């Protein structure tokens, strides 16, 4: 019983991180109707940025959060401004944008190989091995902080999307682009902003991931896949949906160690995806993420 509880708590901690990771992908999809295949690449790039800041400038990963957010917000603006805006809008450009952003990902991977070689890197801070005990079991301090940061980010995002003009504009464009044009929302600017925000969130996820996992230039592929599974599971449009999707995936992965060998843990998400698709083709909660 104690073991189950411990696993459950780690699943919750993991779910917090997953939710922050998936939200960037979900936001961009929800508003622009394109899948940001560069998501995994951004996560990888951000992990390397954090690592560079830590090793070269001795900057603590968590203190680097503002830098990461700004840098990747700008990266997102650049990707949108230089590439994505030339593609047809909406579903007509979906496959094109997919391949385009895949190209961006390949270039990022290549750059990372050239700059940092293909070796695994990890960030070891003084508190990397510190642990905290909750309910008699001890948990890594890092995981708790990552969970906390993720929660703060999600709540801040939720407030931004519900309380501010631009946040409301983003949600409105996600619901109906044409009506937004009618009432005078600058749709193109909303797209730009959304892409920047989604990329910044991916950057945050990369920073958090770099404190938990080792990474190399191929890092990010399974993060992309997991983010996608979460979106399909939880649907779009609400922090709650994403959180539920993240929770389901995290619990499935954590408890799968009872059933499958550990190297297959990363395949659990995919199996979950297929099962959901067979049983509930519209997604778990019926928001029709799928076509």
């Amino acid at each position, binding site marked *: 019983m104690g073991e189950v509880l411990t696993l459950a708590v780690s699943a919750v901690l993991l779910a917090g991180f997953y939710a922050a990771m998936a939200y960037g992908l979900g936001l961009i999809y929800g508003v622009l109707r394109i899948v940001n295949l560069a998501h995994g690449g951004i996560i990888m790039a951000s992990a390397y940025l954090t690592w560079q800041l830590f090793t070269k400038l001795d900057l603590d990963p968590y203190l680097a959060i503002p830098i990461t957010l700004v840098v990747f917000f700008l990266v997102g603006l650049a990707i949108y401004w230089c590439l994505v805006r030339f593609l047809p809008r909406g579903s007509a450009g979906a496959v094109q944008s997919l391949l*385009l952003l895949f190209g961006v990902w390949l270039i990022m991977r290549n750059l990372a190989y050239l700059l940092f070689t293909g070796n695994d890197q990890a960030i070891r801070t003084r508190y990397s091995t510190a642990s905290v005990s909750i309910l008699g079991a001890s948990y890594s301090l890092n995981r708790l902080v990552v969970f906390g940061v993720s929660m703060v980010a999600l709540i801040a995002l939720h407030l931004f999307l519900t309380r501010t003009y631009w946040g409301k504009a983003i949600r409105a464009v996600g619901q109906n682009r044409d009506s937004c044009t009618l009432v005078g929302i600058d749709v193109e600017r909303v797209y730009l902003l959304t892409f920047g925000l989604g990329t910044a969130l991916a950057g945050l996820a990369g920073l958090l991931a770099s404190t938990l996992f080792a990474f190399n230039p191929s890092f990010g592929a399974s993060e992309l896949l997991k983010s996608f599974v979460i979106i399909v599971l939880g649907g779009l449009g609400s922090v709650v949906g994403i959180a539920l999707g993240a929770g389901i995936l995290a619990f499935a992965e954590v408890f799968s160690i009872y059933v499958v060998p550990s190297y297959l843990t990363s395949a659990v998400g995919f199996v979950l995806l297929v099962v959901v698709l067979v049983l509930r083709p519209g997604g778990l909660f019926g928001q029709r993420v799928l076509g």
Partner: protein
Amino acid sequence: MTAPGTAVGSGAGGRLRLPAWLSGRALVTATAVGALLWLAPLVLPLGEYTHNVVGLTFMFMAAALAWNWLGGYVGQISFGHSAMFGVGGFVAARLMLALGLPFWVAWLAGGLAAGGYALLWGHPTLRLRGPYFSIATIGVGEATRLVATYWSAFTGGSSGLSLPLSGGPTKFQLYWYGLYLLSVAVALSYWLRRSPIGLALLAIKEDVEAAGDVGVDATRHQDVVLFLSGTVVGICGGFYASYQAFIDPQDMFSFDRSISFILMGVIGGIGTILGAAAGAVVFVIIQEFLLANYSQLYLGLYGTLLILIILFEPLGLAGLLIRVRKLFGYRPRADVAAGGLRSAAVGVETPGAVEQGVRVEPSEQSEPVERGSGGLEERSGSPPVDRGSS
């Protein structure tokens, strides 16, 4: 094979009826090109290296065509075709090792196993459209690679498998087997596009629900295409195993291999009939002659190529060709233009009344599709009536 084709080609509208998807001229051209390629190594003084690379290129062309059936004809871009390539390769290799089967039987068996495997994951995931299917296939590829790497009893794990030295064809002979494989893939490509099935696939690509409304069984059609695609790619995997005489899961199932199929399709022109084959040639040229010296740059180069093509010429080489021929007053045929990327994404739609109007937008920008969608029946070389009626 050759004789009836010539008869029909010259004696306009002769008594021998070819199937509607096959025009006499295409048959004659294909036979002539095939015969030339068959004879080429016997006549031309090709070096051994070039000869082998050309043989391998035939296989890649076949694989690219097979990928294109799914990626181009149906508009479902697969990032996981390395899974079928690997399954085909390893099943074929195991059959040759364990039972000593003749290589071509092993290839076929490997191909069928790969096709079956494709159906296994594809039947559920093909409910996804466009980008969602694509991402799911990333998962398929990764999961298959993981399992294959750890299942060393079957795949030999990271140390791989060596094929029996005797009994298999030599690299020199593989040239002709590659050519046969390519011929089959080309014939299937034409059949899948020009037959009524091709029209059904186009309908599915444009709008799954509308296709369903006019009686096209989207699930069954996609399953068939996926099975054929997986089978041919699996046979290519078997060919590759014979060619290399050694295979290991890290190579066969790698994500890079899946990427290579996508690139071949995109370079050549997604959804065109023969574009993918041309793309495969370009891909092999890049890989063998340019990247041999700059191996650390290949991902970036592929990425740049992908971005440039998508931004400037989404139909790839085929699009360039159309552009050049347009300068001379050529009007592209409906099926060439309709095969492109543009319409490949339908299915990801937002609800709302206004959206209905918006969806006209893309076809307004693109005159080829516009012209094409009205003129699907007026394809040259075959009677228009045969189209819808079977």
